């Protein structure tokens, strides 16, 4: 009985998702091993992992594994599984490994649950997972059969375990020449560093028609920068040409599930809500206190965003001034590659319970008095 956690290496660096998998695996109460697949960087990564809470670290290393080919990774993992004989394999649900996992499942003839937000050991020791479907509107509890059970875990679903230990590294012999890999990675273009990727962001600040004009996004950017958040937008602003399409949140844009979603001047048409209503904590700023977004929000701020946003920016800076240690901890998951040196900042990552638990906590019964409606003026944000 053992759980194998797969480490992701991107461009020579170990990605910290492995420590989220470690948390999930430990909670299942079984021995935990790590699997490292890669080229030159694999052995260094394995050395890191053996001192960080994994009892055993299996390494399949070969120069050809420097490139990120799904086929090669699936074959290498299959070899590790054959040697380690785990009951369950946990992989990060990143773009790379979410695509490797199905190939691995086919090669092993077993079952696969992808992008889960919770994994637990069921009564029969079989793994049971919770995953979201229908844009986060349905949660399914699924028993994964077949051995080993293959599970990819959504980033940020678990906190990162910061443990120490002295595990052993075990090399796994592989023969890549026999795999006949037909994919070759030829290059990489990093995302512009100034922008946080919307889909993977854990915080999003979005603007809607209530901004009044394209310059309104300057305010949004300022708040986003202050919070370390990505910039989102309602469809109306994108259609109006205020901001490029890649920022659009909603049914026809991106679906986001950040921990924090700040909606500024967005009234909350159903198409927009479909793309973000699964966010853990929602803050809405709007002049129309009765609009759907304000009703949905955990914190509804009634007022003019032109006054409120700069005030929040100032207050946050003030709070940071009192607690400067927190300032480093605002990197999105995707950029947080991990090394010993950054352990402190990773440990300072806000503790995140599973999405569901977090959600419950943030929505805990707070009653809200509906203020009497007085003279109402037409909100400038009434048509996002």
């Amino acid at each position: 009985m053992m759980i194998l956690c797969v480490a992701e290496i991107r461009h020579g660096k170990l990605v910290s998702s492995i420590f989220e998998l470690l948390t999930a695996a430990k909670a299942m109460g079984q021995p935990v091993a790590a699997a490292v697949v890669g080229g030159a960087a694999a052995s260094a990564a394995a050395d890191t992992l053996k001192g960080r809470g994994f009892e055993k670290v299996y390494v399949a290393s070969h120069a050809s594994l420097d490139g990120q080919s799904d086929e090669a990774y699936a074959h290498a993992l299959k070899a590790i599984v054959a040697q380690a004989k785990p009951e369950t394999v946990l992989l990060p649900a990143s773009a790379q490994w979410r695509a490797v996992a199905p190939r691995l499942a086919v090669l092993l003839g077993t079952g696969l649950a992808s992008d889960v937000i919770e994994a637990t050991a069921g009564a029969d020791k079989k793994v049971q997972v919770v995953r979201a479907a229908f844009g986060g509107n349905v949660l399914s509890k699924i028993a994964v059969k077949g051995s080993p059970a293959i599970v990819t875990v959504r980033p940020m679903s678990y906190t990162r375990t910061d443990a120490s230990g002295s595990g052993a590294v075990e090399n796994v012999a592989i023969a890549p020449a026999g795999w006949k890999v037909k994919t070759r990675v030829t290059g990489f273009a990093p995302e512009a560093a100034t922008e946080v990727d919307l889909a993977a962001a854990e915080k999003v600040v979005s603007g809607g028609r209530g901004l009044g004009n394209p310059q309104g996004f300057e305010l949004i950017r300022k708040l986003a920068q202050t919070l370390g958040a990505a910039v989102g937008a309602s469809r109306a602003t994108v259609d109006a040409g205020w901001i490029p399409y890649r920022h659009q949140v909603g049914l026809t844009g991106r679906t986001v599930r950040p921990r924090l979603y700040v909606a500024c001047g967005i009234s909350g048409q159903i198409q927009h809500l479909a793309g973000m209503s699964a966010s853990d904590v929602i803050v809405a700023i709007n002049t129309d206190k009765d609009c759907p977004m304000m009703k949905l929000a955990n914190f509804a701020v009634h007022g003019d965003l032109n006054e409120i946003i700069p005030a929040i920016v100032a207050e946050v800076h003030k709070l940071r001034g009192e607690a400067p240690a927190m300032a480093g901890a605002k990197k999105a998951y995707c950029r947080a590659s991990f090394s010993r040196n950054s352990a402190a900042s990773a440990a300072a990552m806000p503790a995140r319970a599973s999405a569901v638990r977090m959600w419950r906590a943030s929505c805990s019964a707070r009653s809200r008095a509906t203020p009497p409606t007085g003279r109402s003026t037409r909100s400038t944000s009434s048509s996002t």
Partner: protein
Amino acid sequence: MDYGFTEQQQEIVNLARAIAQKKIRPVREHYDQTEEFPWPIVEELRKVGLFGVYLPEEVDGLGGGNLELVLAAEELSKACGGIALCVATSSLCALPILLYGSPELRKKYLPDLATGKKLGAFNITEPGAGSDATATKATAVLQGDHYVVNGIKNFCSTGKDADTYVIFATTNPNRGARGISAFVVEKGTPGFTFGKKEEKMGIRANGTYELVFQNCKIPKENLIYKEGYGLFIAQLTFDYSRPGVAAQAIGIAQGALDETMSYIRQRKQFGQSISSFQAIQHMMADCATQIEAGRALLYATVRAMDASNGPAIRKAMEENKVVADCMNELDTKRWTKESGMVKVFCSDTAMRVATDCVQMCGGIGYMRDFPVEKYMRDAKITQIYEGTNQIQRNEIAMMMIKEAASKSKKDLVAA
């Protein structure tokens, strides 16, 4: 209301609605403000094949009739009457060629108009010849294998953005109304240039231009039908096309009401939604009733027209003849009165409904950043172009008197 459309008609409605709502609605304000020609939208409409729904398959159309044409026009106009016009003028150009053109002329010009590869325009108006087309001053003189055209035409919708034009000029000034002829002119023909661009109240996405002809040589074959038939051609074209204006009007009215409904349901005054006030409710009920009455008249009329015109168009395609000749052979009914009634009723309805919608929305309804005032500006033209509603009433009355006279004659014979 279910009007019992065929599968193809329903597809046209669905597709035109999808484009209107997804593509046109978000940009209509832009084109209204800038008066730019909406080329990206035209490209969309071209790609999905909405230009030739009413044209026979022989000329690369979809094989539908006037009902197909008005369904597309209505849906597009729900989002923007001005952008809808950019499609409609192509039909106004294609219809005289379809109805009176030789098989060769049809083959030469209709396929590109049917696919939208080329845009069409139609121009009969002159500074001195508005409602009175008989006052046409532009001249066309036959010289060998071509006509030489001189004169100024104005108020041409889709003006300089079209490729193919149907224009009217007199080939015999001594014969007055019977001296006017119709021609197809291509953009780029030497001597054919554009004059002033008008600044308009509404339908601003579609540019209105002056057409200037200075010793412009048009090939002889581009004469439509025969010399002197210009006004017959114009009349038959309008009989067919006025329901299209009515469809534009109904679309505008419905679009205005839809925008109004979504606003008045959420607008609160005196502590409640203004849609709960009876004064508003009666206005919206009247608007909806008038729109539905207009739509019912429109669909019933174009269905009857299609049933009546269809056999002549089919016969002309199969036997390689001119459609108007086949209409004469088959004694096809002329629809001047009915198409006039549809145009008058629907355009008056549009103006009334759009005005009431502005009223229901109150102050915001009057503002440019709210869409309802644009519907009111766009609605106005439908009472004016393709024959003012006053001219329509004249024609309706004239036909009534003729029919009554012929009925009493018949009664006399029968007695």
